[in-house]
């Protein structure tokens, strides 16, 4: 890696003692000797293992649940159903007033995705827990399911989640979040060319090497210590407190080094049920996702569909952009209503466009609920936006890199969401990329600056 100190050198003090120096990481000696403590590197006597009975159907009513055979299985200590969970209906972002509560810890009346948790089985070994789980009998009435976002938004589509009529999230702005800036139709009217394209993605797994999990121990004083690999300690504590109707001071979350997160460990799924199990059995409880659960049960990055319509002039200026973005939340909200609306501010990209119209929808379908992942709400948008930029450049016969210089935002430019641009450095990144990749552009682009516009 090379740091090009010549850019913006007047904005920095490079003469610091500790900052800007590649000090050796103090944690790596622990990593290489196996001494770094991950949450699962603990062994407790009397530990119980929790295995989840999961829905084999994408969408089904639960007629009845029979746990009697499971309870009799050797090694099984306790079986938990929805009735055992004090506040079974929850949503993670309720802590920052993003409701409604729309997901059950353990399903009671209905399952809305294949893999949804229905019954928790606790046993003295993983094997006994697995065997016990296989003996739980759930009688399902299979319902029609919907997997495609546009199908889900049709009036006659199966209702995925009763808390979200129409299969979309309801923002205070209506069925979608929006940005309106300038006059997008006037922009299209004056454009030399218009290009409308649709981009798609499918769900992506964070795939950390260490799977999601926790181990809970009763402390003996009605407090519970939860060793967890969550990415957010208090988010987990506060949500567990709500679900378990247990004051926060009874909960103690201990993290450590996490074996990779990438956004996959911001949901609060394993901890509340494991704490409940420890409370009800009085024994330490381990609930750790198998690799299969990590890959197909834990929330992935959402699939998205993004429709971009741009108006461009022959001289390269983007004069109008209209974007409709759809985020596939799966069956429940988790962090998706938050991530879906992130695009409204992002879709203009790092470019200054005078006429912008953006709508983003958060849509519910019968699949694994999606949630955060590295680049949440932006990664797929960047794919769509920058492929679109390439197409636009070729449409008007312009070099793709020069086309980006022409439209790059500068300090002081007003963004569509009505914040002035500050601290821009896109132009300098492109100038450097042009040099390092030997992709020459016209001289005037090397003279540009993010700090001001040339006269």
């Amino acid at each position, binding site marked *: 890696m090379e740091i090009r100190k010549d850019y913006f050198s007047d904005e920095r003090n490079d003469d610091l003692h500790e900052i800007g120096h*590649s000090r*050796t*990481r103090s*944690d*790596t*000696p*622990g*990593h*290489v*000797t*196996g*001494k*770094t*403590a*991950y949450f*699962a*590197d603990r*062994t407790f006597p009397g530990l119980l293992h929790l295995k989840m009975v999961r829905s084999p159907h994408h969408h089904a009513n639960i007629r009845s649940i029979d746990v009697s055979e499971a309870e009799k299985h050797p090694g099984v200590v306790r079986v938990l159903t929805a009735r055992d969970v004090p506040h079974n209906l929850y949503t993670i972002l309720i802590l920052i007033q993003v409701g409604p509560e729309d997901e059950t810890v353990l399903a009671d009346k209905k399952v809305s995705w294949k893999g949804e948790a229905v019954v928790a089985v606790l046993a003295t*070994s993983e094997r006994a827990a697995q065997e016990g789980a296989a003996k739980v009998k759930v009688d399902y009435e299979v319902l029609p399911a919907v997997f495609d976002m546009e199908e889900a938004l049709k009036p006659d589509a199966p209702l995925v989640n009763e808390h979200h009529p129409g299969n979309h999230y309801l923002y205070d702005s209506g069925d979608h979040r929006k940005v309106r800036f300038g006059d997008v139709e006037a922009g299209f009217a004056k454009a030399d060319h218009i290009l409308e394209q649709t981009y798609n993605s499918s769900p992506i797994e964070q*795939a*950390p*090497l*260490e*799977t999601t999990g926790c181990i809970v121990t009763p402390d003996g004083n009605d407090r519970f210590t939860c060793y967890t690999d969550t990415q957010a300690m208090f988010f987990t504590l506060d949500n567990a407190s709500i679900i378990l109707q247990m004051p926060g001071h009874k909960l103690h979350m201990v993290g450590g*080094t*996490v*074996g*990779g997160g*990438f956004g996959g460990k911001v949901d609060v799924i394993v901890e509340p049920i494991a704490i409940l199990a420890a409370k009800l059995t009085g024994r330490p409880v381990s609930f750790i996702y*198998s*690799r299969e659960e990590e890959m197909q049960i834990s929330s992935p990055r959402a699939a998205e569909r993004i429709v971009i319509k741009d108006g461009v002039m022959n001289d390269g200026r983007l004069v109008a952009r209209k974007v409709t973005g759809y985020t596939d939340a799966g069956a429940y909200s988790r962090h998706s209503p938050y991530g879906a609306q992130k695009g409204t501010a992002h879709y203009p990209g790092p470019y200054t466009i005078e006429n912008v119209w953006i709508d983003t929808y958060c849509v519910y379908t019968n699949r694994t609920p999606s949630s955060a992942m590295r680049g949440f709400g932006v990664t797929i948008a960047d794919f769509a936006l920058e492929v679109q930029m390439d197409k636009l450049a070729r449409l008007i016969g312009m070099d793709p890199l020069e086309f980006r210089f022409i439209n790059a935002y500068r300090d002081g430019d007003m963004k569509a969401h009505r914040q002035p641009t500050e601290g821009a450095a896109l132009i300098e990144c492109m100038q450097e990329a042009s040099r390092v990749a030997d992709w020459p552009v016209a001289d005037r682009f090397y003279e540009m600056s993010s700090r001001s516009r040339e006269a």
Partner: protein
Amino acid sequence: MARVPVQFTLNGQDRAEFVESGVTLLHALRHTMGDTSPKAGCQQGTCGACTVIVDGELRLSCLTLAETCEGASIETAAGLANEGLLHPLQRAIVDGFAAQCGFCTPGMIMAAKTLLDHTPNPTRDDVVEAISGNICRCTGYEPIIQAVLTAAQSNSQKAG
């Protein structure tokens, strides 16, 4: 569940313990022998985080039954440092910033050690081949490859 005795050397130390019949070497090491350096990343033999060396050969401890290691000599990443002095592979990973979350690191090191034990002067392709069964989600692998090559070099300098 029936419990059976197992006896082997772990990082040069004689160990004899009772384990449940049918448990994996990974489980026995982590939960009976107190060596948590091998990690459970998939428990289906696809990630390499549990890699150890059994009688000089690379093994996925999640696919190895503890009972089959009777009398064997087992090496793990926890046993590599000598009186606090890091093994060249460990040193190279620390100095080369070749670990991030660290979860794949002990297994990665054991895969690389198996290579260096057999091929003291490996080519880059040798290194790539040797760690191809070990998944890393953080680093993009290049720093790890470089660290293994660096360790091989410092080994051969010492030998020379």
